[in-house]
């Protein structure tokens, strides 16, 4: 598919892509940190939301600001900013989630002066009326502050238009994921990863139509007779996955990824926004209803219930937890999630990654052993 080629081109050099896009479109570029950054409001302001991950450069400059026991995502993003690799950003948005991003926001504000800085101090608990009202208040404030920084007023109409685009992206990705779950052989895991990832980087209007095309093509292909499928169905669980290679390694080890609950995966696109309701309230409601991030609270078993349900729905034979080292929120949830899976009879394994995947065959061997066991 030619769309996939386009995707790979973008992912090869996201910064290069966005710089070109900025020059051509004249749009301001706003860096975002997590799946609680309201892309809809940024789009409605006529700006372009660009998800930051850290380019994986060696940590040198960030060393002077963040200790070694901080996750690679946070250190990596700061390294890029201090190294001048993000000079094209006009602004950056920090949704409040974990303790590490919280401090990154401060450190960024004090040390990366070139772009404007907005904090989005979201509620941490998401299951009370008061929290809902506060979430709405925070998003309203953000709408005003962003508009001020960009010297625009964001109208409800513009917000609705942006919501429609984001909904199209989400709906298309949902279809693609569903098809991947049904017929894993028609799309490689690494391609799935690339599609979601590219959607966080590229022009969103283009992303919407492009993903719809991919979904349509997949639907066509899926009508063909399914080949016998000997591979074992694997579900991935965790926060942010920055390592497309793991899909290939899993596939080579005899597994096939049929779904995930990553923020760089299904959490990014799950839940559509009501297009008729008050737009800010509707954006807030999606955040409140979507499965919770471990740095937020919504009942005591929300994530486990969700994980077990998804693993069953996708008929996963096993779950691989993919956790970043020094990521507290996810590390705290791991034992109870594992226990919930154990009780549901779904085997799992844990992979903890510091920043890079180990290059030796150790990972391959572990995956092979796991796939064989399940």
């Amino acid at each position, binding site marked *: 598919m030619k769309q996939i080629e386009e995707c790979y081109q973008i992912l090869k050099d996201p910064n290069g892509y966005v710089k070109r896009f900025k020059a051509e479109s004249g749009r301001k570029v706003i860096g975002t940190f997590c799946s609680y950054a309201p892309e809809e409001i940024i789009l409605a302001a006529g700006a372009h939301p660009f998800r930051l991950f850290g380019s994986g450069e060696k940590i040198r400059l960030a060393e002077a600001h963040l200790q070694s026991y901080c996750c690679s995502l946070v250190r990596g993003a700061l390294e890029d900013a201090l190294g001048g690799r993000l000079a094209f950003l006009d602004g950056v948005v920090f949704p409040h989630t974990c303790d590490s991003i*919280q401090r990154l926001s401060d450190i960024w504000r004090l040390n990366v002066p070139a772009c404007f800085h907005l904090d989005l*101090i979201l*509620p941490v608990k998401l299951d009370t009326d008061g929290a809902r009202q*506060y979430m709405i*208040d925070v998003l309203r404030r953000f709408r005003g502050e962003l508009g001020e920084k960009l010297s625009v007023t964001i109208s409800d109409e513009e917000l609705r238009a942006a919501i429609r685009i984001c909904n199209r992206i989400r709906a298309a990705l949902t279809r693609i994921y569903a098809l991947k779950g049904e017929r894993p052989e028609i799309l490689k895991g690494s391609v799935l990863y690339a599609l979601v990832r590219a959607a966080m980087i590229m022009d969103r209007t283009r992303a919407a139509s492009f993903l719809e095309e991919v979904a349509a093509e997949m639907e066509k292909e899926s009508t063909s007779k399914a080949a016998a499928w000997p591979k074992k169905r694997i579900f991935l669980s965790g926060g942010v996955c920055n390592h497309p290679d793991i899909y290939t390694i899993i596939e080579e080890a005899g597994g096939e990824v049929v779904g995930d609950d990553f923020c760089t995966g299904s959490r990014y696109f799950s839940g559509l926004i009501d297009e008729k309701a008050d737009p800010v309230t509707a954006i807030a409601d999606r955040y409140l209803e979507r499965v919770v991030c471990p740095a937020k609270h919504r009942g005591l078993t929300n994530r486990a219930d969700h994980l077990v349900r998804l693993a069953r729905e996708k008929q996963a034979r096993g779950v691989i937890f993919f956790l970043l080292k020094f990521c507290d929120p996810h590390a705290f949830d791991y034992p*109870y999630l594992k226990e919930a899976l154990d009780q549901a009879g779904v085997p799992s394994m844990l992979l903890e990654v510091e920043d890079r995947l180990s290059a030796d065959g150790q990972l391959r061997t572990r995956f092979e052993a796991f796939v064989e066991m399940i």
Partner: protein
Amino acid sequence: MAEKDEEKEKRKIKTVAKMKEIMTAYYIDAKTAGQTGKKVAWITSGGPVEPLIAMDVIPVYPENHGAMVGASKMGADLCGKAEAMGYSSDLCSYARADIACAPINGGPIGGLPRPDMLVCCNNICGTVMKWYEVQARFFKVPLFILDTPFCHTGFSAEAKRYVKGQINEYIAFLEKACGKRFDYDRIKEVGRLSVQGQRLWQEILDTAMNRPAPISAFDAFFHLALIVTLRGTQQTVDYYKMLLAEMRQRVSEGIGAVPREKYRLLWDNLPVWYRTKWLSEKFASHDACLVADTYTSAWCGALRYVDENDFLGSMAECHTRIYLNIGVDEMARQVIEMADKYDVDGIVMHSNRSCKPYSFGQYDIQRIIREQKGIPTLMIEADMVDERSFSEGQIETRIDAFIEVLKGKKS
């Protein structure tokens, strides 16, 4: 370092015995709650304890328990047990130790009394919320979260509304958990005692403005327990009055916390619980006294926001705008304020692997202090409870070198 026994005796803080007595009685009370029919709530150190006192609920502090685990050098073992339960070794060691204690009644006092409810305020970190979720699942008891939005650069009107609303939710939660009405008269009295206790605590810490300082941070780490645990009781007020009187007495007699105070230092971050004695002797051997710290002063930092006549009403602000819930630049500003107030020669920062919100940003605070005040700082890497992260040789060398720097500046 050969100080005569008599000298040593003179230097000892006499109220320590009383403090131990109060804490023992408190833990016995808490541990026998099952028999006396009293309810027990586990609560975070930054949480609103006064409503519990007003409801006759016994507050229990897992963090204080964590400190006891650390001080009894049981940290490495319990943290290891938590790791065997699947909890990463990079998580906060208070949380790890406590989670490991719960199923086996482990630790120095045979486990904490079983909670009837959990009260978690996330003004200190996100860790406590995850930790209390774990315990709420384990003990199957209700959990109340007081969500205090982080104040990067200020406290917004909507955040204030949100927290204020939660104070009412908290009261409703307590009424349900205790099966009785909240006593709005009683909370006024408890609030008054709480403020009085905080003021006394501030006054005690302030006696360290004297030269020599009659009290050091190491003493404060110990005497802190009451303002955390039994804030809002007459007992705490009485105790701190005694301690304050003793400190004033020491000031008038010129008794210092260290025999020959030459260098005055400020400590940042939590104590290294399993090495307080070693560190205190180490610094004293260099004639250095830790005259103040950012940790124990956090329990009177809210005084600037408290309204004695509307204790419940001002609670939202007091709990949200605490030291750890503010931006790094504001923290630096407060550290500098303390450095000036206590007239310190240097700052010792504990880069604490366990506590990310306290430790990330320390490098910038260090830089800001250097730029604005030119005060030397020492960074030591350790962990408050897990002694596996403590490298004695390395830390000793760094302290020695730091003192040399101070010497150079003084001469």
